[in-house]
């Protein structure tokens, strides 16, 4: 089991020795039991850092934010930035590096092995009727502090599905790593939900998705939270259009409007299809998008579908290697083509 003090010491050392300019980690939130992301720049803040089953956020997002901030202020990064990263987070960082969003030496990865106990799925906990104010790891269990006292639950009962299915619950890419490598400890069959879903026929699948897509309010939380959605302007809309001094009137005037802003089915589905396509081979299944969706749209199914295609048809593993080309920018001579006439 990881000793939280080790993580704090690591962060403190890095900051004290001026090896990094900041550490992205988790701290206690101000409401409820959940941890929240924090960026600390002072060694004295290291003791704020926490590590518990509510550290579900994929912090790689804040590397992206940091990069955008630097670009905006035209500041030179100087020292690297450190980040606390789980297995999936580290894979996300690898994808970002694959896409040259930053260089390896600009990031100091404090790897956290999930040791097979993953992170919590709040909805599973809620469905057990538990309201807790704090959560902690303990061996293979989670321990919750509730109004009725301490409650111990086997982690696998309330763990996020993606953690149950995780093949490599370990940050392969790291500068330091805490915890044991429990790779191989897969608690549930990968793509289980996907498999179950695919047993339905096309008509049933549509009925299901139609209802899901109709519900989307296009708050774009799914996109905002995804470290892979780092584009300044998303192709599907004009939100956050990166107007610079070089952007011409022509460019501004001639943006293609692939989708409209109205949250109606046709636009929502195009948005989600596009997003799934754009995440093919890039999504690392951190499942943040699905977690943050306020209306419970099962985005993981879409991402898993793409992930499995990539793996099974093209032998492609997202976030496996910094040097690998992107899934859709490469091919194999014998890629499947049975579908082609």
């Amino acid at each position, binding site marked *: 089991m990881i000793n939280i003090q080790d993580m704090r010491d690591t962060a403190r050392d890095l900051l004290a020795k001026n090896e990094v300019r900041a550490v992205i980690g988790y701290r206690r*939130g*101000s*409401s*409820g039991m*959940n*941890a*929240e*992301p*924090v*960026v600390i720049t002072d060694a004295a803040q290291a003791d704020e850092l926490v590590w518990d089953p509510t550290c579900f*956020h994929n912090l790689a*997002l*804040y590397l992206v*934010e940091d990069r955008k901030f630097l670009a*905006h202020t035209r500041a030179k990064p100087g020292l690297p930035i450190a980040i606390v990263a789980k297995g999936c987070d580290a894979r996300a960082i690898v994808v970002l590096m694959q896409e040259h969003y930053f260089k390896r030496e600009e990031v100091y990865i404090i790897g956290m092995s999930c040791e097979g106990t993953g992170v919590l799925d709040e*909805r599973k906990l809620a469905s057990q009727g538990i*309201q807790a104010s704090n959560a902690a790891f303990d061996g293979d269990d989670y321990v919750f502090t509730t109004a009725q006292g301490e409650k111990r639950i086997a982690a696998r009962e309330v763990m996020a599905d993606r953690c149950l299915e995780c093949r490599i619950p370990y940050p392969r890419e790291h500068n330091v790593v805490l915890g044991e490598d429990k790779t191989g400890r897969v608690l549930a069959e990968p793509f289980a939900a996907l498999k179950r879903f695919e047993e339905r026929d096309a008509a049933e699948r549509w009925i299901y998705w139609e*209802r*899901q897509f109709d*519900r989307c*309010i*296009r*708050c*774009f*939380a799914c*996109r*905002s*939270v995804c470290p892979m959605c780092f584009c300044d302007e998303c192709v599907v809309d*004009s*939100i*956050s*259009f990166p*107007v*610079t*001094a070089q*952007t011409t009137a022509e460019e*501004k005037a001639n943006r293609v409007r692939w989708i*409209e*802003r*109205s*949250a*109606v089915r046709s636009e929502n589905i195009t948005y989600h299809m596009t997003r799934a396509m754009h995440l093919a081979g890039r999504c690392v299944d951190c499942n*943040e998008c699905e*977690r*943050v969706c*306020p*209306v*419970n749209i099962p985005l993981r199914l879409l991402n898993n579908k793409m992930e499995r295609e990539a793996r099974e048809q093209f032998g492609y593993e997202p976030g496996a290697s910094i040097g690998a080309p992107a899934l859709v920018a490469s091919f194999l001579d014998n890629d499947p083509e049975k579908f082609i006439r």
Partner: protein
Amino acid sequence: MQKILEKIQLDAWIAALGEWEILAPAMEDGIWGYHPLDGAVRLDHSNTTQPPKGLSFPQREVFFSFEQIKGEPPRLTQKMPAATRRAVFGVRPCDGAGAVRMDKVFSDHVADPYYQNRRKNLAYVGLACNKPQGSNCFCLSVGGSPVATEGMDVLMTDLGDRYFVTAVTETGKALMSAAAKVFTAPTAADKKLVEKTHADAVAQPQRAVNDVDAAPAKLKASFDSPLWEELARACIGCGVCTFLCPTCHCFDINDESTGSSPIKGNRVRTWDNCQFPDFTMHTSGHNPRESLGARLRQRVSHKFQYFPENFGMPQCTGCGRCISECSVGIDIINTVNKVTGHVG
């Protein structure tokens, strides 16, 4: 008008409201929302994920359609919402208060015909909160109450096997009169019980924003505080907090159209929100609220400073949605308290 409604009579009441389309809370795909009534009403819901604001201010509103045949002037066809009367059951007091704020925005200066048309046909049949619906409720501290009638046409209070039903507006009276038979007059005991229930509800512990009345001045003084950036550091700039807020009303107007002749399309209003990076970005690229800190400041200041300055009430009703649903724990209570706590 104060009446008693046996819980088993609720369906009978609704059945009598033939002219009304009834919306009631229902759980779909794991979330509570207001849906057209399907079967019996069960008002055992916790607060809905989305407030009922979409009923008067839908995510998408078509203003008018246009058709432009080459060489001819464009033809515009106004699209006013259909005048169906809709009664929404189970609205929580914070959302009632939200409607009051929305009404102000959409009638101040000039009246918004689309909003007004929908709103005048909408009746809120509220349900008092005997206890807070979630750990992030803070209505009391922002001038509301779990039993407030603000914004409601009718307020019901759960008394176990009965509801204590109060008509707040004329519409409310009409709603109740439509099924006069199902209601009974409250006894003195009923009145006592409801008083006690309300008192208990108000006494329940809630989170709180400190000194809302002093907030405008304090926020004004803290405009340049570095705390804003610090507090917004984790914010991902999504739209959850405002899209789910019962009082956020910012919108965008766009033309959705075909490019080929004849050009046909609609001018459409959609929700928009101040947390999106391009919300205020000028065409030149200059953005008055570029940073997340500035945007968080706008959201919080709008609710606790600007709106009070204009309308004499905070634009936050304490429903706690933006806290509970924020994926990274940005907490409006904490934010206001921290920022205002730094000024004397």
